[in-house]
């Protein structure tokens, strides 16, 4: 029994990573109908940036994180204004291409600034190395921090989306772009804040998982792809769907290692996703769209 719980907990850890990335991707997709291909690179850059402030500039840990997040958020506002806003009326493909260009750009800046070597993001008190046990199941303190942080992030995003004017505007845009515009909601405002929120969530993910995955070039790229798959699973327009999809994918991976035949273990989670898509193309957690008018 304890082994099973330990296994499930390991799935949760991965799941949290995918869930947060899924959340960040769905935020953008839901409102602006855009796939942000640069999300992984941006998340990784933020993690590196926080490390840079903490280590190279000698700033206290929490302050370094804050500075990094704020600077990345400001940078996102700038990027959105300069490269994405001008194309807001074009086909979604143009913006997708922009995000791809951003990916190359940011990856290059990252390696020039931070070097190619792997680094360790040391948490004060080295809590990433400290474990404790409950009933024979071992937990790591930093993983608990990640769990708590994830809840906090979800709560904040949930609050913003459901209880603020901005959130209302975002949801209006997600429902019906033209109607929202006619109601006087400024598309530019929604766009810039959606992007900022999304990239901030991604950035926090990069920071949270830096001690788990170690800071390497492109360390968030594979989790990004997994988060993408998770968001697909959840239906890509449901925020909670993206999160649940992430957790589900994480658990599927862990269980597949233990129970699935070796050949299928890797592909199994994605095969399951694929079949779910065939049966329920809108994903597991979205409601069907209203009848289309002819």
């Amino acid at each position: 029994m304890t082994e099973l719980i330990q296994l499930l907990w390991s799935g949760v850890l991965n799941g949290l990573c995918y869930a947060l990335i899924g959340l960040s991707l769905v935020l953008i997709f839901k409102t602006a109908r855009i796939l942000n291909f640069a999300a992984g690179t941006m998340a990784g850059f933020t993690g590196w940036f926080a490390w840079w402030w903490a280590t190279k500039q000698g700033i206290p840990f929490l302050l370094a994180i804050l500075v990094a997040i704020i600077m990345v958020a400001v940078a996102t506002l700038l990027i959105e204004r300069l490269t994405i806003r001008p194309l807001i009326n074009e086909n979604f493909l143009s913006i997708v291409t922009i995000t791809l260009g951003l990916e190359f750009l940011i990856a290059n800046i990252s390696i020039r600034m931070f070097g190619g070597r792997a680094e360790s993001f040391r948490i004060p008190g080295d809590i990433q190395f400290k474990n404790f046990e409950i009933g024979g199941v071992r937990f790591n303190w930093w993983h608990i921090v990640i769990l708590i942080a994830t809840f906090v992030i979800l709560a904040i995003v949930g609050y913003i989306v459901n209880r603020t004017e901005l959130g209302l505007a975002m949801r209006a845009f997600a429902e019906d772009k033209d109607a929202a515009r006619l109601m006087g909601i400024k598309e530019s405002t929604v766009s810039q804040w959606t992007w900022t929120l999304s990239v901030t969530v991604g950035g926090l993910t990069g920071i949270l998982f830096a001690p788990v995955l170690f800071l390497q070039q492109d360390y968030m790229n594979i989790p990004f792809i997994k988060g993408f798959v998770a968001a697909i699973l959840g239906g890509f327009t449901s925020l909670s769907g993206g999160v649940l999809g992430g957790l589900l994918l994480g658990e599927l991976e862990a269980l597949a290692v233990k129970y699935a035949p070796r050949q299928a273990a890797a592909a199994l989670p994605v095969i399951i996703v694929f079949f779910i898509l065939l049966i329920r193309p809108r994903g597991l957690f979205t409601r069907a769209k209203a009848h289309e008018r002819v």
Partner: protein
Amino acid sequence: MSKKLLRLLALLAVFSLFAIGCGGDDDTSSTSEETAEEATEETVEECVLGPGVSDTEIKIGSSQPLTGNLAALGVQAEFALNATIKRINDGGGIAGRTISLTVQDDEFNPEKTVTNAQYFIDQVGVFAVWGSIGSAPTVAAIPLHDEAGIMTLFTWSQDTSLFDREAHPYFFSLNPSGYKQAVAFSNYFGNKFDYGSETPVVAGLVLSSPDGEEAAQGVRDGAAGAFEGGTQTWERDATTYQPQLLAMKDAGVTDIYTVVGDTQFAQIIQEMDQVGLEARVWGTNAVVTSNLIDLVGPLAEGALAVTVMTGLNADVPGLVQFREEMAAVGASEADLSSASMLAYSGGLALEAGLRAVGECLNADALADALLALEDFSTGGIMAPINFDPSTGLGNQGAIIQEVVDGVWTTVDEG
């Protein structure tokens, strides 16, 4: 009108087929520099210099992963290459020639390695491609090298197909194949290692691939095969390894043999601690870096590795010199790793070979010179080097290292 068009097209098609077949050269090189030296009065001997060799210069190319997730290896190797070039050139060169090195990024993508290879061969005009990293890139590029008569020297790649001098006469390496390394580990473990009183359970943690399978097979084929407790595989895009480690914990594994890079090794060590798996963990060449210690600190204590090189703390003249020369080209302590040491050792062998050849430098001459090296000393960095004429491999042994007091230390000179 249409009939005429069809006839014209048919004619064009036939003409094209001929044009393809007859036009152009069979190989890609077209700018090889070949000069014939005049014969001396006594002997009617013509010396044909290899491509990239002139009276004053030897050009060498290197395709490294300078970006992407193996960027660390490329950067470290590049330092070692530069250190070697600096040493040779500062010392006046060899037979009146300085060495000029061109390094290009291949992002660990065979597509790029191949276009780099053509760049080296056709635009730079090199004599050899030195120090490539990775099996896939090397396997992809070596046909181009072979066709152009370029040497492929001292790569860090483990694919067995490379170690065949009949197919690749100009391939020389100091890094054994994955299988050989696994056998070396297995034999050491079974015959020499003191694993304590309990019966050990040995498991492999390898990438799900033929490379990984070869390694797992190597463990089984050696003396440790008697203690085999199964192999766990991980996928290229695994985020963490906890599920695999938990399975090992269930099976009571005492020793884990891994074929991974140093960052992954660090992650494995960290996660073993997080799931409460108490076992010894063994790595290969790739994990012997001070970066590993930086990443996981005291958790690294007791980690073991089967390498072909000595520990970073060893008091051997070769290592001292290595440190000095690396510092002289701007490397830091963290850049001292297997990648750089391997490249550096290759540089030592290369220098020795070049000096032995002297003026009349071409691929065959260098190949012969390398094969002729007997017990070549790297100042203690590796066991003495002898290149096997059928495989091109320079060392066969295994040196066992362990992290002691935060430093990789040689514990057995297999």
